[in-house]
């Protein structure tokens, strides 16, 4: 399904000059992190047809079947550690733009970077970095998107929560086309991240968000807080307006939209 030739023909930028295709892997992020550590250059991309140990946040398993996208991009930006969190918003914006243009769907971002269509999760991004003191050695952006998975293939308990491109469009999509578009958009958004045009990047995230202005519940470990997702700050953190009127900055947590 994933033909190297077909994909390479579509790659135009510096991301994906080197693509490593795997039939099956535990996790593209783990492979990417190892390669980055061993000196693989910025822009190296690892793609797997299936992934056994795909992880969501905190190791939650990510349902992995053939026909979906499992990929990781190695990035080696020369930035301060604290800016790294913006990479994760950057990747979200890139994926949503790519999916929007290739599928025509109204694809949105749920803070920080869940890819959602009509409230259902279509994909997620998990970025891993390696930090030594204040230096960001590298970042690996792991992207998982449900593409050609049938609605019936989802485990029944998540059918109301998850979806795929095919489930929404009733069409089988070309994986190389979507992948190449993601790489193209990631490259464009990475320029915004790198050239200190971060306001533009944040503005683009706000435009594509499904979260802002909504009444939300945020689960942080054992704590649950509710409020209105008012905005994101310049580091991409969620600004939540509590009932008390207090504005709380959220760096981590699972957001659920309330009706």
């Amino acid at each position, binding site marked *: 399904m994933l033909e190297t030739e077909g994909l390479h023909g579509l790659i135009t930028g510096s991301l994906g000059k080197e693509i490593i295709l795997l039939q099956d892997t535990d996790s593209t992020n783990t492979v990417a992190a190892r390669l980055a550590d061993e000196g693989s250059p910025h822009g190296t991309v690892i793609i797997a047809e299936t992934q056994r140990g795909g992880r969501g946040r905190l190791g939650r398993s990510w349902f992995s079947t053939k026909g979906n996208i499992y990929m990781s991009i190695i990035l080696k930006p020369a930035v301060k550690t604290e800016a790294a969190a913006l990479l994760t918003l950057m990747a979200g914006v890139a994926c949503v733009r790519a999916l929007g243009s290739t599928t025509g769907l109204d694809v949105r971002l749920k803070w920080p970077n869940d890819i959602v269509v009509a409230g259902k999760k279509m994909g997620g991004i998990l970025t891993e970095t390696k*930090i030594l003191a204040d230096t960001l050695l590298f970042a690996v952006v792991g992207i998982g998107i449900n593409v050609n998975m049938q609605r019936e293939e989802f485990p029944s308990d998540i059918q109301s929560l998850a979806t795929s491109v095919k489930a929404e469009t009733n069409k089988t999509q070309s994986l190389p086309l979507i992948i190449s578009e993601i790489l193209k958009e990631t490259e464009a958004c990475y320029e915004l991240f790198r050239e200190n045009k971060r306001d533009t990047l944040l503005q683009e995230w706000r435009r594509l968000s499904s979260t802002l202005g909504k009444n939300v519940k945020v689960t942080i470990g054992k704590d649950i807080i509710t409020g209105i997702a008012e905005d994101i700050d310049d580091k991409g953190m969620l600004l939540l307006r509590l009932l008390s009127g207090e504005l709380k900055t959220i*760096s981590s947590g699972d957001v659920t939209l309330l009706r």
Partner: protein
Amino acid sequence: MELDEIKQLMDLLKDTDVTELQVERDGAKIKIKREKFISSWEIPATAKHVTAPEVKEIKEEAPETRLLTVSSPIVGIFYRSPSPEAPSFVDAGSTVKKGQVLCIIEAMKLMNEIESDVDGTISKILVENGQPVEYGEPLFLIEPT
């Protein structure tokens, strides 16, 4: 100097405001110190009294100064293991190598693996698993080897 003479000196000071008297004669040196109306031979007592806490302080401080603090490079949530079911990266007493992952700080689905920059032993873990941490907050104390 005879014991009687010393006694006389002490008695002499009793009803005065003088708190310290030093007498040097025939190569012998005597110092009488009065505190709070109590006259006493304080030289040995003072010496002991003063040096004791100093020694103690040094004892307490010495290991602290040899410990290195690993601080959080970002704001986020501190995790001691890669997933809830997985074993901790390190525990108190664990031996670590330079470059070994100590913990993950998660912020906005960015999993930051924090590495040790020295070889050593984990002396103390200062934050509980799942707790939010601030920029620069101390996470671990490591005793370098």
